[in-house]
């Protein structure tokens, strides 16, 4: 994994924001929302390789 760049405070903010947004999207649309978010984040990463490592990390220990 790449070195974390979020401070603990920011990570906590992301944690709450994401949880709230998933609820806001609703059960039916949660997957769609998360995929949209992943695409936006991937575009911001500007690296298919980095995205690939994130995918592999997220697939672990499901």
């Amino acid at each position, binding site marked *: 994994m790449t070195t974390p760049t979020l401070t603990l405070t920011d990570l906590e903010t992301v944690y709450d924001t994401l949880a709230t947004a998933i609820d806001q999207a609703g059960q039916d649309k949660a997957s769609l929302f998360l*995929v*949209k978010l992943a695409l*936006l984040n991937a575009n911001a990463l500007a690296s298919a390789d980095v995205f690939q490592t994130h995918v592999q990390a997220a697939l672990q220990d499901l």
Partner: protein
Amino acid sequence: MHTPTTQARPSIYYTYEVFKPWLASQHPQQKRHQVVIVGAGPAGMVTALELARHGVASVVLSAELQFSQGSRAICFTRRSMEILQQVGVADRMTKGGLPWRFGNSYYRGQRVFRMEAPHDPDDRFFPIINVQQQFMEEYLHDACQAHPLIEIRWGNKAVQVKQKEDHAEVEVDTPEGPYTLESCWVVAADGGRSGIRSAMNLDMEGTSYEGFFVIADIKVDLPLPTERLAYFDPDWNPDNTILMHREPHGIWRVDYQLPAGETPEAALQPESMKARIDAHLAMIGHAGIKWDMDWSSVYSARTLTLPDFVHGNVIFTGDAAHLLPIFGVRGANTAFQDAQSLGWHLAYVVKGLASRKLLTNHRAERVGAAREIIHEAGKSTRFMAPPAGGFKLLRDAVLSLSLTQAFVRPLYHWRTSRPHEYTHSMLNSLGDDNALFTTGPAHGAPPHNVRLGANEFLLDHLGGGFDLLYFTDAESMPESLQQVITTTRAKGIALRVIAIGSPHAVMGADLHLSDANGHLRQRYGVPANGGAYLIRPDQHICARWLTLDATRLQAALNTALPQ
């Protein structure tokens, strides 16, 4: 007994001619033929015309007595038109066709993507032209009939092919019963449901997708330009995709995807089609407009290819060799490239100008092309009609994002059929200067067209044999090159020499193009006199030099025609 219908097919815009069946009893005893082509569709007829162009006779069998039903293939690419120009029907296609270069994709009433295909002043043909397949078949058939080396046999259905040591036997059923044809080579151009492929138990490799599409041709007066229209997930057909194309003669093609689980039989019920087409026309702002149905069919996307096209003395081509999805207009457009390739490769083997290694090259180039096309077509299909699960979720996420996020919009691009580049062909010269060029068409690529005058283009002059483009402003071709050219021609190899860069005739060249403004030299990346391109009979580049000498010309010709 094979009894094809003698009833002319119904059509709003096309009058079908019903041809007389060819009957063995009315003809003298058959000799062994050089080439028998099974199937008189685009692939079969272009193969016959290309073979004839290289001096090889063929017999073309059609199971039916008339051209195919419905518009079927309607969008023809620039490269297809360049190939059709080679076989003499491009002018008729142009005259009756609707050229276009823009495509639009809509989601939730918003245009989220617009494709603008470039149209360079150096190109004679538009990126795409729409012509119904019956007309295209008629033009090709007229060209075949005009050629003494082509015999078309209507109402002749190939039912079995038996491989022999050095030839094949085709059992043909006709309205008066069966007869047997012997042929050195059999070309299976009998379409997507190839009976020969089934009879030979050949398996195709690839993917079949689940979704069905209804293809409907309707006569309707819509005040819209000739542009491709795609609608995603509309209210009247949630989750599904609809495509529209304008065709000549006031016809519109409307393709719509069926909801999961609906059978093709149910979807083709007239009341079902009426309700859906009415709903679609209403959605695009033409509620209640009058329209008439011309033809309809059902289609499912497949990306399948035979892993080899050459089996003994039987060669598969076009849809008989591979099945490609409609998204990206790849069916007939790939078939033309297959047929143009097969035509010269087979002709040169039949004439003894090269060994069977040349057919090994054909199979390598065209199977490679099919696999590359399948790779691209798979991407289009997974966007147009995504399989349930991850692909559906991703596609829906892109639709949703595309309303506000520009970066995802290029994913709507439908990757139109394009000419394959035979970059690693075994016919490419090894000792030429390909790698030293900074621009121009490279090894295996089709040539770049160049406008030479108001109605004159470089490609008008290429094809039918090998072409040597030699860049010079001298009075004559170098003596040593002329010797190679003379020796080559003496073997029966067609080799035409086009001198470029001289305002006057060049001795030893068949044609000179003055290229007064240097545009052709620049397009081909030739900075000085003495540069050259060697172009195969299918117009693909097989060698290029910054400075050509006789030894290297001879070497390139030897490589292009393996013995």
